[in-house]
């Protein structure tokens, strides 16, 4: 109940913002009868109506996870974001081993298994991508010592 109401409200506000920014769109001299604003405004209006419906008649509350699980999910998101930033400067092998290991640990908290998964996946996938598929991946940072 509450989730749908809050989310519906957020959708309405987001849709209004979307419509407002559609009105600000620059039009060029090469315009057609519809123009570049109409379609986004229609789409935004549909979304706003749907948001209102969710506020008025919400579904039963979804089955949300509890405290510890939220923490594990949060860690996973942070790891993935970090991985996205690390992939280019640090090469493939080290960030992958770390990220895969941590995610594996979040699914099944056994340190040994997670560490082996991380190392195995990073080396195995590197070999697969580099030699079987021929992707131009960098294994290690360019200025890696040694």
């Amino acid at each position, binding site marked *: 109940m509450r*989730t749908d109401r809050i989310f519906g409200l957020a959708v309405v506000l987001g849709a209004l913002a979307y419509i407002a920014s559609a009105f600000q769109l620059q039009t*060029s001299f*090469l315009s057609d009868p519809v123009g570049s604003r109409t379609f986004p405004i229609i*789409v935004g209006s*549909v979304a706003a109506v749907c948001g209102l419906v969710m506020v008025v008649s919400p579904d039963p509350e979804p089955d949300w996870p509890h405290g510890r699980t939220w923490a594990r999910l949060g860690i996973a998101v942070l790891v993935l974001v970090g991985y996205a930033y690390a*992939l280019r400067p640090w090469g493939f092998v080290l960030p992958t081993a770390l990220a895969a290991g941590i*995610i594996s640990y979040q699914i*099944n908290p056994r340190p040994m298994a997670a560490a082996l998964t*991380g190392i195995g996946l990073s080396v195995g*996938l590197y070999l697969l991508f580099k030699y079987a598929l021929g992707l131009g991946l960098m294994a290690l940072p360019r200025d890696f010592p040694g």
Partner: protein
Amino acid sequence: MEIFANLALGFSVALTPFTLFLAVVGCFLGTIIGAMPGLGPSNGVAILIPLAFTLGLDATAALVLMTSVYYGAMYGGRISSILLNIPGDEPALMTTLDGYPMARQGRAGDALVISGVASFFGAFMATIGLMLLAPMLARVAYLFGPAEYFALYLLAFCTLGGIASNNQAKAALAAAIGLGISMIGLDNTTGMPRFTGGNLHLMDGVDFLVAIVGLFAVSEVFFFIESHGRGSAIGVKLARITIPVKDIVNSGWTMVRATLIGFFAGVLPGAGASLGSFLAYTGEKAVAKDRDSFGKGNPRGVAAPEAGNNAAAGGALVPMLTLGVPGSGTTAVLLALLMTLNITPGPTLFADRPEVVWGLIASLLIANIVLLVMNVPLVKLFVRILTVPGWVLLPMVTMISFVGIYSLSGSYFDLLLMVAFGVMGYFFRKMDIPTVPIILGILLGNNMEDSLRRAMVISGGDWTFLFSSGIAIGLWVAAIAGFVAPMFLRGLLRKPQAITD
């Protein structure tokens, strides 16, 4: 006969050793992907698209590889349904109803063989149906102008939202979100940026592959973290596999009926394989004399949904190839593949690139035979794959997703966007907001807007032009009916929930 000439052309493409090799690899990978709990046709195909793209395959080869994966995943989905009572993908849900009880009675091998044969029958017949129906529909599609296309896109969103979801408002919202995202980037007509917030990375728009991989594959990781990877079972036992000839013969008519139902469910834009298997199962149960034994391990209860969902998988290719409108989540992913390969689906595809269309059809026929061989005698091999635990599988899927998306653009921004879509997918699936309309919106948004604008250019701004032809009116009526009718039929067409122990 024109069709035989076309088929000959198709087989001349498909029977080259390299294409054949790709079909076999695709079938093998697909069956593995389908069998793994948590990976199905849509996310399996999605994570492989960027890789297929970077391999530098030509259009036909890439298409053959990915559709083999698609068909393979449809076959493979039944394995975990039967053995673990966990559908490998959504369409395989109905197979759990009788497949798992059969496995508990010690007839897992029989259930796997029957469902394998049923899958083959459904998929093979549907491919033949595709062969007959698609060129006809392609001819009709020449009559489609911008007004008709606009109505057709609307129909796809309406039926997808109406039939495949539990809440109309949420389905429509998902479509609107997808369409809204597709507006980001340069306006096709005027060349001015829209909704980029001044961010250069967004100038090109949001790549649909980023959204697909995020929503379908990365979000799965979060679900596994939440459930601690339960569902990846270890130690599945399977006795010697024999062929239950009697059961297969007994369910012959079942397969025929289920294939017909499934194929037509697949052809409807937006309906897709889940609906096909659902209708096939309920239809079969309704006509059966031994209705009570359904749900308790009736072999026909295994044959019907499998024939139905594989027939629907073939049927879903008809609107995708001829009109460019996908009939299901997975065909939406295949449409993304076509667009990545710079192939525009539609009637002109049949005239301009016959080698692509007929090569694809011929390789589907070959893929089906390969799949039958793989899935009946070799099924034990795939059963072993089920024992790969979630804490290895999901990190692997994530890393492949990252490398795939990274290899497309080499930009960390797309990776961040993918993670954001993953988080969004997790919350939306929790809240029962369907994610397929989002993908469809991102894929079709620009085409939909373009056809609206083109229609208005033709008519000089007269909005009644949208309803000016019989085809357009028919599509509008179907769209409204497809969206509204399920609200009243919901009590009747309740989706069955998986049985629990």
